[in-house]
């Protein structure tokens, strides 16, 4: 693993020299900021109304009312943003031929893979940390509960880890970045909506679909419940995709 660090540093630097990281940060924060603003505004209107209506006040809670929908929506926005971060990982190197230079140097495939994966995770982690400004800001004016917010972040971290693993796999299968982004988006969207047909798919298929769905597993985290089953789902998905990527790197070389 001696070569993990140089790859990691190089990949991280190229996220910021090609301004893709800045652009994704910008778009993401603008959208999340807008959702936060409208959530807070709606919540404050409700709060004013509850001054005259004690029944309404009982169910009013800033964590439930603002942050839970916000984090659920962030999951959806990630569907759109993550392919932009992962598409270049291998596709770009294959297109430009630098993969030949890299892999003929004394380095293992697994070092390349983990270096790239970790760099993308780091970019994503910073993005998540930036969104922590919103709950931090809220503590100035209200008192959101720490538990569900922290568990939501854990959920988003795991969700992102699996999304990035999927994107890495797809990027290793093509040399066209647009194709990589489009296919990754398709797969993520499918994982998101796959549970919608669970209710009428019969008991066996229904459970299976629910289990496969990335949404269903995230619901618990947003509620403030950390279930090992959900953690294992995301970890499994990530490791499985990274393993396939490693295989794809090898088989690519078999076929030339």
């Amino acid at each position: 693993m001696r070569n993990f660090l140089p790859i990691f540093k190089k990949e991280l630097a190229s996220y910021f020299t090609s301004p893709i990281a800045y652009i994704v940060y910008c778009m993401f924060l603008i959208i999340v900021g807008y959702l936060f603003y409208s959530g807070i505004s709606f919540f404050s209107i409700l709060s004013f109304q509850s001054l005259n209506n004690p029944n309404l006040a009982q169910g009013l809670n800033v964590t439930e009312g603002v942050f839970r929908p916000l984090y659920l929506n962030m999951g959806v926005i990630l569907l759109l943003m993550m392919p932009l971060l992962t598409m270049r990982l291998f596709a770009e190197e294959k297109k430009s031929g630098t993969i030949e230079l890299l892999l003929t140097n004394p380095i293992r495939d697994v070092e390349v893979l983990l270096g790239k994966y970790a760099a993308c995770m780091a970019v994503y982690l910073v993005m998540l940390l930036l969104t922590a400004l919103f709950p931090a800001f809220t503590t100035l004016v209200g008192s959101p509960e720490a538990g569900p917010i922290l568990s939501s972040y854990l959920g988003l971290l795991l969700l992102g880890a699996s999304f990035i693993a999927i994107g890495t796999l797809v990027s290793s299968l093509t040399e066209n970045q647009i194709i990589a982004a489009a296919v990754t988006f398709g797969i993520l969207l499918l994982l998101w909506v796959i549970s919608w047909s669970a209710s009428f798919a019969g008991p066996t298929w229904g459970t299976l679909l629910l289990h496969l769905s990335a949404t269903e597993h995230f619901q618990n985290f947003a509620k403030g419940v950390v279930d090992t089953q959900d953690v294992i789902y995301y970890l499994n998905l990530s490791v499985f995709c990274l393993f396939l990527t490693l295989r794809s790197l090898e088989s690519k070389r078999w076929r030339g």
Partner: protein
Amino acid sequence: MIEVEGLTKYYGPSRAIENVTFSVNRGEVLGFLGPNGSGKTTTMRILTCFMPATRGSVRVAGHDVFRNPLEVKKNIGYLPENVPLYTDMTVRGFLNFFAEIKGVEKGTRKARIDEVMANCGVEDVGDKLISKLSKGYRQRVGLAQALLNNPPVLILDEPTTGLDPRQIIEIRELIRRLSGEKTVILCTHILPEVEMLCGRVLIINEGTVVAEDTPENLTTGLQRSHRIHLQVEGPAAEVAASLEEVPGVLRVKQSSPPSSGPHSYDLEVDKSDEARKALARMIVNRGWGLLEMRTIDLSLEDVFVKLVTTENGG
């Protein structure tokens, strides 16, 4: 240093190389010649562990490329065809990245990078982005990358294409300086380059090795006959007729007649020296003036074209 045996590679159903066998000794410079699409790059990619062969074995510095690729890669400096580089990095950043990967000690890294940059003539563009460099400079950066950990084996896939004549000479000088201390495989179409730099030439065509020898042996040994250029003062038709009668002369061709002065003839004679002696004697006996007689060596280019075209025809 490098032993290649029975190397065969198929891309899906199509064959790129078949049963390629050769070896390169320590300190030798091997020219790897072949027309477009003959499988040079494919062979180099297998040697550098970029892709595995369908059949056959390769050992570099005693390590097998399939079993021990990491050790093989440590021993090879590779300049791929078309020189792919990370264009969003500066030259120094790029070299630093690969120095780290090649395991150049942290303490000596900076000194080593300065050294290869000076060797390859890129010291004055160190802080430039690679995307802003000209083709020639990119080539040099690629070469500098290959030299970073001072590997015993260098594999250069067409290192001088796209360079201006001055840069070509500089790169050749560099390769010449490195030869002797390093084992080099030089892939190229440029024949004078091979004649200049390589101790041995291997010609590959349509994926199979068609010749392997020193450039001198290839150009003389492969010829079944000598070509002789004659300039004789005398009646053209008569001279030509008499030349043909000399024993050992296989063919006479009169060069296009000059506007004035003596006529020239191109002869093909068998390899013995007797024919040449007889020719000189005959011309002198007849009282004609023998103004010039020289043997024409086949150039490597002729040999190359000959080998490659006969192969194509057959």
